[in-house]
């Protein structure tokens, strides 16, 4: 049996999320604040026997903030289990509470925590006339979480994350429509009170490794004591008897030490002398108070570990942080093993961010080896190193969009070949795209180097600030990776930038062509053919997928860079490309020729001469705020970024203004006036159209106007 699905509805930063799991090892990856900890907490509420009962009583703060007014809404945490069997006696009690009967057998099991208004509130809601907003408001106004109940159900059939289902079960608050039914079989039956589902399975949670030393020192959290207890169940009193005897003897011996006895007598005498017989205590003794209780004595057990120096074992607090964490994790795994031997039909191990303090190499080994039978492991991570090891089919990605978090399954609906291709591409660097808010895929080094510089220099904001990761695929195999971005899978935007490789010079064969020219023409024609074919394929591939957009460079990056109006930038680095004056001069003329056949040939010659990568680095140094971003690149960036907020526009325009001021292109008064209007725009007193006109009027020549015009 394993957890096949987790559904979260209105819980903390999830409005509705489906998280799918497979047998074996599962990974949950996501940036900080994407809800990894909340997701684990949700699972623990259902399965962790160590969870305090009071935790089930949820709180206002547990409602998803995006709900606005939470009152009346439900929080639902739903787990689905697969590969259950009614034929196995060991599962019977678990399935009695949770098993979904389908025909003559049990197919799946479901177990849900539902936090909802109590019966009397739901009765009132169900009696509302359709559309009675005022009545609804009256009921909601006084609601507090004291009017809520937590129930645990099993055998549910509802897809809680389906908004239509939610409206049927809970109600439609927008239209004030509530079902007259108070009991919906789809949410399943209440799990019998005498049954504890958490006790039926074995579950261990390993918390993000924060303060291990403190955990070791706290008796409740010390994994060593937990281990001792679970190993022997309760401590055998028979075996402990001799120890109790020894402690008693020890205490007696200490009390009997001549010095101790002497002191006692001296104290007595002194009191008698000082206070007199009448006022002195009637008896006084010195006792050795070593406890003979097993619990207390076990606290004296401490783990000593030798880390670096041979022959020296130190306490946990002397270990390096990484070492202490490794020990901690090991003890938790051992605790899990002990638990597992007691009950074997379902074992779950949840590990939160194992990378927190463990070295990359150990991480890799640890998770390659973490593979127990009958055990489902779910760990969360934001380490690209761990996600590289894990199978993309077993990954859930948590992503934040606004106040809500969503879960994506990157391999949903893909065939094994496609999955294999993704797996090959996801090395440690490219794994980044799993964490990205949005991505731009490029085919070569030039784009990888120059696009970030272009954006930063022209717009004044970095790709990071725009939430865009630029990934170099180093080939044109875009489909292999961009297949990840889809309604079914990662619902984040992905731009692809690729060259169309159209010819830019006359390729009509001419009898006068020498061999080299012939080959060049053939090559260009061939490239054009391939480019067209690629365009067809990519267009078809991205068609109907709102998450993927392809931007085509009409020719090739370097050519189109000049075509956009940047010949001056290239000219400015010529002296670093060529040493020879006449060549530099000739190149300059060609680059400024405005004839694509001429400057196109030249720039490719230059790029090939120094190498495309090196040339990009050279060129990068020349890029400033006057550079013009080719349209297709701008399109790709804008698609990936999504709707541009006023805040971004403000940042961009402020940057432009600063550039203008620094270069002394504008009068101080003009700049100051524009700044005022810009601030008015930031404060919402001017709209976008107004600030755009202002920019155009004030700084007519500024390159940003062309970009603004596209909005």
């Amino acid at each position: 049996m394993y957890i096949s699905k987790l559904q979260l509805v209105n819980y903390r930063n999830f409005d509705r999320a489906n998280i799918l799991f497979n047998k074996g090892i599962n990974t949950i990856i996501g940036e900080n604040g994407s809800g990894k900890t909340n997701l684990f907490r949700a699972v623990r509420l259902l399965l962790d026997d160590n969870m305090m009962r009071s935790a089930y009583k949820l709180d206002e703060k547990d409602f998803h903030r995006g709900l606005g007014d939470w009152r009346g809404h439900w929080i639902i945490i739903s787990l689905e289990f697969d590969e259950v069997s009614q034929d196995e006696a060991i599962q019977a009690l678990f399935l009695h509470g949770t098993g979904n009967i389908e025909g003559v057998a049990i197919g799946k099991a479901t177990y849900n925590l539902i936090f909802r208004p109590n019966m009397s509130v739901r009765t009132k809601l169900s009696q509302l006339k359709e559309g009675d907003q005022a009545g609804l408001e009256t009921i909601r106004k006084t609601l507090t979480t004291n009017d809520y109940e937590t129930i645990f159900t099993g055998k549910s059939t509802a897809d809680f994350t389906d908004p239509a289902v939610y409206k049927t079960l809970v109600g439609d608050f927008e239209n004030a429509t509530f079902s007259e039914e108070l009991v919906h079989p789809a949410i399943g039956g209440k799990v019998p009170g005498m049954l504890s589902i958490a006790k039926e399975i074995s579950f261990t949670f390993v918390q993000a490794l924060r303060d291990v030393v403190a955990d070791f020192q706290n008796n409740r959290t010390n994994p060593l004591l937990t281990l001792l207890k679970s190993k022997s169940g309760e401590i055998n009193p028979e075996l402990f008897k001799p120890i109790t005897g020894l402690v008693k003897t020890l205490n007696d011996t200490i009390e009997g030490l001549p010095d101790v006895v002497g002191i006692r007598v001296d104290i007595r005498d002194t009191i008698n002398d000082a206070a007199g017989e009448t006022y002195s205590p009637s008896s006084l003794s010195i006792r050795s108070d070593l406890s003979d209780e097993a619990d207390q004595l076990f606290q004296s057990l401490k783990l000593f570990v030798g880390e670096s120096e041979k022959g020296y074992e130190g306490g946990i607090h002397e270990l390096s942080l990484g070492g202490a964490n490794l020990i901690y994790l090991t003890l938790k795994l051992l605790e899990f093993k002990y638990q597992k031997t007691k009950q074997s039909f379902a074992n779950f191990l949840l590990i939160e961010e194992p990378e927190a303090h463990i070295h990359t190499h150990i991480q890799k080994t640890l998770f390659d080896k973490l593979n127990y039978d009958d055990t489902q492991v779910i760990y969360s991570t934001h380490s690209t190193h761990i996600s590289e090891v894990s199978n993309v089919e077993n990954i859930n990605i948590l992503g934040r969009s606004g106040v809500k978090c969503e879960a994506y399954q990157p391999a949903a609906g893909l065939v094994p070949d496609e999955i294999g291709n993704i797996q090959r591409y996801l090395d440690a660097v490219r794994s980044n795209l799993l964490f990205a808010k949005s991505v731009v895929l490029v085919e070569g080094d030039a784009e990888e180097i120059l696009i970030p510089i272009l954006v930063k220099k022209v717009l004044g904001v970095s790709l990071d600030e725009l939430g865009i990761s630029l990934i170099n695929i180093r080939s044109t195999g875009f489909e292999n990776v961009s297949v990840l971005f889809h309604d079914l899978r990662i619902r984040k935007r992905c731009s692809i930038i690729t060259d169309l490789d159209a010819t830019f010079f006359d390729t009509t064969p001419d009898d006068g062509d020498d061999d080299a020219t012939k080959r060049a023409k053939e090559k260009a024609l061939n490239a054009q053919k391939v480019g067209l074919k690629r365009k067809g394929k990519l267009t078809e591939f991205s068609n109907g997928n709102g998450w993927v957009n392809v931007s085509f460079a009409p020719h090739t990056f370097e050519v189109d860079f000049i075509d956009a109006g940047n010949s001056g930038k290239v000219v400015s680095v010529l002296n670093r490309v060529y040493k020879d004056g006449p060549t530099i001069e000739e190149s300059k003329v060609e680059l400024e020729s405005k004839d694509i056949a001429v400057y196109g040939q030249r720039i490719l010659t230059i790029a090939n001469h120094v190498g495309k990568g090196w040339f990009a680095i050279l060129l990068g140094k020349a890029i400033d705020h006057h550079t013009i971003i080719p349209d297709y690149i701008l399109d790709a960036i804008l698609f990936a970024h999504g709707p541009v907020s006023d805040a971004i526009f403000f940042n961009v325009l402020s940057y432009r203004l600063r550039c203008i001021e620094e270069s002394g292109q504008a009068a101080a008064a003009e700049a100051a006036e524009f700044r005022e209007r810009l601030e008015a725009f930031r404060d919402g007193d001017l709209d976008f159209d107004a600030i755009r006109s202002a920019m155009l009027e004030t700084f007519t020549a500024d390159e940003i106007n062309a970009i603004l015009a596209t909005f």
Partner: protein
Amino acid sequence: MFVWSKNDLNPEQAAAIAEEHSVFLVACPGSGKTRTLTYKIADQLSKLESDKEWVIAITYTHRAADEIHERVAGLGVDTSRLWIGTIHSFCLDWILKPYAIYHDALKSGFKVINSHDSERMLTELCRPFRYPNISYWDCGHYYTSAGRVLASRQKNKLPSVTQALDKYHASLVKNRQVDFELILRYAHELVASNPSISMLLGSIFSYILVDEFQDTKEIQYAIIAAILRAGKDKVRTFIVGDPNQAIYDSLGGYAITANEIRKLAGIELKELELSENYRSSSRIVSYFDNYKVFSSEIVAVGKNRDYPSLISFNSTIERDDLIEELVRLIKYNVETIGVLPQEVCIVAPWWMHLASMTRKLVAALPTYSFDGPGLVPFGRDLDNFWYKLSRIVLTEASPQMYMRRLRWAGEILSALQDAGIDTSNLSKKSLLRECNSVSILEEDGLKFLARFFDALFTRLGIDFRAVPVLVEHHAAFFESSKERIDKLAKEGAEFIGDVGSFRKVFENRFGITVSTIHGVKGAEYDSVIAYALLEGMVPHFADPNGEDSAKKLLYVVSSRARKNLHLISERGRIDGKGDEYQPTDVLRDYNFTYDTIP
């Protein structure tokens, strides 16, 4: 491992407990059936290998469940994996509640209604019917695995009764209500149409023990057999009872045979007997042995074996002199031969004869205490939340009552949870503490309870009036109690409404018991006095198996007695046709040398 000392059990009892296979145990009266059952449960609980297994014990009454539970706990065995209760509770807890979503009549929620509600609804539905008139009492019915069976033996009434019941059931379905008979029917339907349920329960239960099988209905056997069949070798059963004491056949109860169970459940079943009667004298045993309808051996072995029993039969006394005769017999037993009052029991076949008789006895013997039907001011509904709570409210916190009250508190907590109330900050102990710290000065019993309930729920911070099911139970409890008190008061029970009489209901029983024959099932007394042993009452005039039924009733009555037995067939009672009732045939025809009571 649970071990008992050698003297706790006789060889027959020990053999039944040691038996590895499923057991079908025929236990004669006074043979230590409950003791055997108790030890068997304790033994099985101690043998449970995993905390995923349960031992299930199905008893005929809540009272028997309580008693056995206490006795098992008293043997020092962990009872956390013991489920014990009536078949109705069993069906609710293990089938209806967990699997409600798989039954159309249950999946949108359901309420269990009590017999008081049923009676009210049926009384209303019967009213329009004329020629013949029908009443609630004609509407007795039960289900078998094949369908509904009407209990009424008056053929001319059946068409009307059928119509009234159809309306009644339509109304129940419409209002999503379930009565006691429907609990069984729905449980059977669920089990029959979802094999998974029996599979799971058959794996969870290690043992199903059934007490009083002779009064168990066919549909109950069908439910249990389905689980046994699905659990094959994993679950075993221990079925105990006495076919000679089957007195509930008019309600569908019947004494199944071991072979029928083997067939139904497909299991091996070992037939064993308990034949040693520890209760009665040889003379009593030889007397009731005559009424056997199934042959089984009975030997008196107890300390009363050689007691010189007096067995009397009076068929000449006039109805008007009956009270004096009863007084004479009571005084003879208590004052002349020194039987303790609480060891005397007076029985009659019909409830209607008893209430007024109890009060006449109270008047005639003012120095004696009585415990009888005319003296309980509440409705009969044991599943009513407020009835359950009143048990705690009306009993004193004392060491003897502690375990019992703690269990009652547990029932209250789970009832609150079922009603959707958050009880996470309450425990059984804290609930008892809260109850103990409420004090209400009020003489009127119902007012006392109403104020007490309010005060308690205020203390608990729970607004029970916002919880529909509690409100309904509240109304039902107070309404039916009020009706009952009014009725009893009209019949002359003056102080019945006082809180003092209320408290007596739950006090450990003392005084002379007054009961119907069906009500003394399982009990025993030194002296038993039975009257109204008249053909037409014992057996019921419409009983098609009159002779057998009369024998079983007389068997049950006679076997209650340890020492003395006094049977009366008074004269002067007139039946519906205007004829005088005659003594019960089988009693009249029994050629026995009766004693005369001086």
